[in-house]
């Protein structure tokens, strides 16, 4: 950061158009239309090693697969039993986790849980049958290697015909790169959690708000946030202040380009391989048809924009009508963007839209508006969201809301997620949620949680574009055995932003035991987000069904981005035994302890 500050800000955010010091990558990697390397078949050898890279004008060492960031696209075929030999050429242990893949537990690649990790010089052989098709990805599960480049696309080709057609297929892998040592980033956050937030409220924004809302109202607003020791500008913990956002390993100025022939339908496989960045993706001028979410087919949804949480994937089909269209992926906090171009030939570019205004968190994100309807009355039309209402309230109304709120009640929190089915529900860590408030690891307990599956998310709802929501997702085919769950476990997503502590139920991984699930059990996980941030929660080894009201066509996902003050649930059948990781996929949250083992036995 300190050194990076000395670079021109624009050059830093945009990256370098010219490439210097990329010897190890070779010239082909740096051409505008550089295709990602691809490996296919049922036997693939991969080597993980240090690789010199330069995304910002400063030479750095990445942790790369076969010398590439991202790693090569692996194309495997459904029905094959694949053998993946991974050799460690680093001087520290490493691992590869196959994200979203249904496989035997020892092949899952999580050091600590499923094996020791791959030691320096060792080769580990992953072997498993491919039981699914779609767009997935892989990444390291060791230390901070995911931040330093160890991730890549994993495409599983279906045996049968796909229920949609396209003539062109491009992977679009989004990620974030920092020239800093990731351990320094984490350490900085422990000392000062707003270290990377250069969009805080200042005297200037105070004056602006006072002119707009009146002095008294503005003072009241500042007092309200100040009393809670929270900042409404907390949108992302790590921002463009240190990150350069990449599309297929290219910073914006290098303009990754995907080619097409006019008239073609183009399938874009979006993968968020970032460590900490949620992206809002759109292609100005084009409607996108979403056909897959997290690798599983969904009923086509026509949208203009979608939010992709860390570790999620979305496949969309577009028919470009111009010679060049910009793929624009702005970070949720609007501190930067990744960008590329769909073009009929190399060297073309389309206008890059300005970034959207930066949103602010509201009291609703703190779980603090008692009269919010449980189902937001919002649809794709782009009307104002419940979440935005609070920002328009006068401070008097805010005060009224705050005094109306009852203290968190255990009873209120423990009834089942779905009204109507009275299945036994308990806290996953065996705690009483009423005891969470005041703990060092908990800075907020949402008093009012609600269903936010119908919302696209902060900064998107009401922006005039048609945004994807989780409620829009419907599985292409009904599930064969869509039985109701027999038990529910509740997890509170908790944190303390000021101390940069993250966990479940107020506990870090090292303070909690495993979450026990019986082999074969049909179980519901209820996620209650008490924090003011989104958390992309990922369960290893399973595709779970998000309970979004779609009957026997609940969408399958491996990662769900849970909004602040949201209460949502998913079900799955625990049919594969083992130690399965369950964690927030924001890398620094996970390393801080927002991680559990789901022990299926």
């Amino acid at each position, binding site marked *: *950061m*300190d050194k990076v*500050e000395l670079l021109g800000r624009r050059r830093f955010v945009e990256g370098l158009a010219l490439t210097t010091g990329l010897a190890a990558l070779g010239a082909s990697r740096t051409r505008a239309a550089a295709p990602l390397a691809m490996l296919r078949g049922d036997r693939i050898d991969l080597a993980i090693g240090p690789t010199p890279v330069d995304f910002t004008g400063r030479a750095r060492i990445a942790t790369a697969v076969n010398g590439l960031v991202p790693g090569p696209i692996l194309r495997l075929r459904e029905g094959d039993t694949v053998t993946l030999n991974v050799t460690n050429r680093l001087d520290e242990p490493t691992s590869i986790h196959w994200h979203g893949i249904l496989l035997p537990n020892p092949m899952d690649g*999580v*050091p*600590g*849980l*499923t*094996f*020791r*990790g791959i030691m320096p010089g060792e080769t580990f052989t992953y072997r498993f049958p491919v039981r699914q098709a779609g767009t997935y990805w892989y990444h390291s*599960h060791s*230390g901070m290697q995911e931040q330093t480049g160890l991730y890549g696309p994993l495409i599983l080709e279906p045996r049968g015909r796909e229920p949609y057609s396209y003539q062109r297929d491009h992977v679009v892998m989004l990620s974030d790169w920092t020239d800093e040592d990731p351990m320094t980033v*984490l*350490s*900085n956050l*422990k*000392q*000062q959690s707003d*270290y990377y937030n*250069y*969009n*805080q*409220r*200042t*005297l*200037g924004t105070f004056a602006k708000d006072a002119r707009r809302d009146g002095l008294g109202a503005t003072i009241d607003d500042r*007092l309200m946030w*100040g*009393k*809670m*020791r929270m900042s409404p500008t907390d949108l992302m913990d790590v921002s463009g202040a240190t990150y350069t956002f990449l599309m297929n390993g290219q910073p914006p100025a290098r303009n990754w380009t995907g080619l097409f022939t006019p008239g073609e339908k183009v399938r874009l496989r979006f993968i968020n391989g970032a460590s900490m960045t949620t992206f809002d993706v759109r292609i100005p001028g084009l409607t996108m048809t979403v056909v897959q979410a997290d690798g599983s087919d969904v009923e086509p949804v026509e949208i203009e924009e979608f939010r992709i949480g860390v570790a999620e994937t979305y496949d969309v089909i577009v028919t470009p009508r111009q010679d060049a269209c910009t793929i624009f992926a702005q970070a949720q906090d609007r501190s930067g963007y990744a960008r590329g171009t769909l073009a009929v030939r190399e060297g073309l570019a389309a206008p890059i839209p300005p970034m959207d205004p930066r949103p602010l968190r509201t009291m609703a994100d703190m779980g603090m508006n008692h009269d919010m309807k449980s189902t937001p009355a919002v649809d794709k039309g782009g009307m104002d969201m419940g979440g935005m209402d609070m920002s328009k309230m006068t401070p008097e109304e805010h005060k009224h809301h705050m005094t109306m709120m009852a203290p968190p009640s255990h009873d209120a929190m423990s009834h089942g997620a779905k009204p109507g089915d009275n299945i036994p529900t308990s806290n996953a860590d065996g705690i009483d949620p009423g005891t969470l408030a*005041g*703990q*060092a*690891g*908990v*800075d907020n307990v949402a008093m009012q949680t609600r269903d936010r599956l119908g919302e696209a998310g902060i900064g998107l709802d009401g922006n005039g574009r048609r945004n994807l929501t989780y409620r829009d997702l419907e599985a292409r085919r009904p599930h064969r055995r869509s039985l109701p769950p027999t038990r529910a476990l509740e997890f509170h997503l908790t944190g*303390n932003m*000021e*101390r940069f*502590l993250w966990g479940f139920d107020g506990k*870090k*991984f*090292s*303070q*909690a*035991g*495993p979450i026990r699930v019986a082999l074969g059990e049909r179980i519901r996980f209820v996620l209650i987000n008490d924090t003011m941030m989104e958390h992309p929660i990922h369960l290893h080894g399973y595709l779970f069904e998000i309970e979004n009201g779609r009957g026997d066509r609940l969408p399958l996902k491996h990662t769900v981005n849970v909004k602040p003050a949201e209460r949502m649930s998913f079900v799955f059948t625990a049919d594969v035994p083992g*130690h399965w*990781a369950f*964690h927030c996929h924001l890398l620094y949250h*996970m*390393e*801080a*302890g927002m*991680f*559990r*083992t789901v*022990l299926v036995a």
Partner: protein
Amino acid sequence: MTRRCTAALAALALAALSVPARAQTHEAAPFGMPVMDRHVFYHALLDELEGRFGSDQSFRWEGEAWGGTDENRFWLKSEGTLTNGLLDDGRQELFFSRAVSTYFDAQIGARYDLDSRPGRGWVAFGVEGLAPLFFHVAATGYVGGDGRLAARLEGSYDLLLTQRLILQPRLEMNFYSQDDPIREVGAGLSDLEAGLRLRYEITRKVAPYIGVSYEGKYGRTADFARAAGDPTDAVRFVVGLRLWL
């Protein structure tokens, strides 16, 4: 009294050492820790590294360093003012701190007044954290030899004028239960220091600043100062650098 403090210190240290049940961690992760949630971090912050210019000139430092986990940390705090070759207000402290609530740490440790005057040792205990409205506050109590008691209150606030230009008001007060003529401090509120510093964060870790500092001596402490021919209050212009590592 000292023995009671030692006992409290021992209890806190034991609490710190009570590692979470190893068995349950092993059950959750049979091959070792999958995440680094017990990692030990270190930081040092030199809040004040400044020249003070008024009727006299002096050099002042105030800083702290910590190392530890999320819950348990060791702290070193140091301050002192060097005027005409004489070191004054030299306070060195070592604390063990534990996160006891959402925003506050409890601290226990020792202080030694180390400067050009005869030294004094103290057992120290206190709380430090973030009060509502983002005020950083610390309150520390001290127990010294001969039944001496002392207390210290500190507070500061960061007012962002822009994203990088930050105005920081700061207040520090010291109280003593007994006169201590050798160190020229008197019973009651002994001294107060109020500062207003405007820093520019070139980066978060490097921030030059300018400001003003007021130092006042009160009650018996002021009497001691007058008797020694020293001023009882002073306003000085300060120029310095705030650094953290």
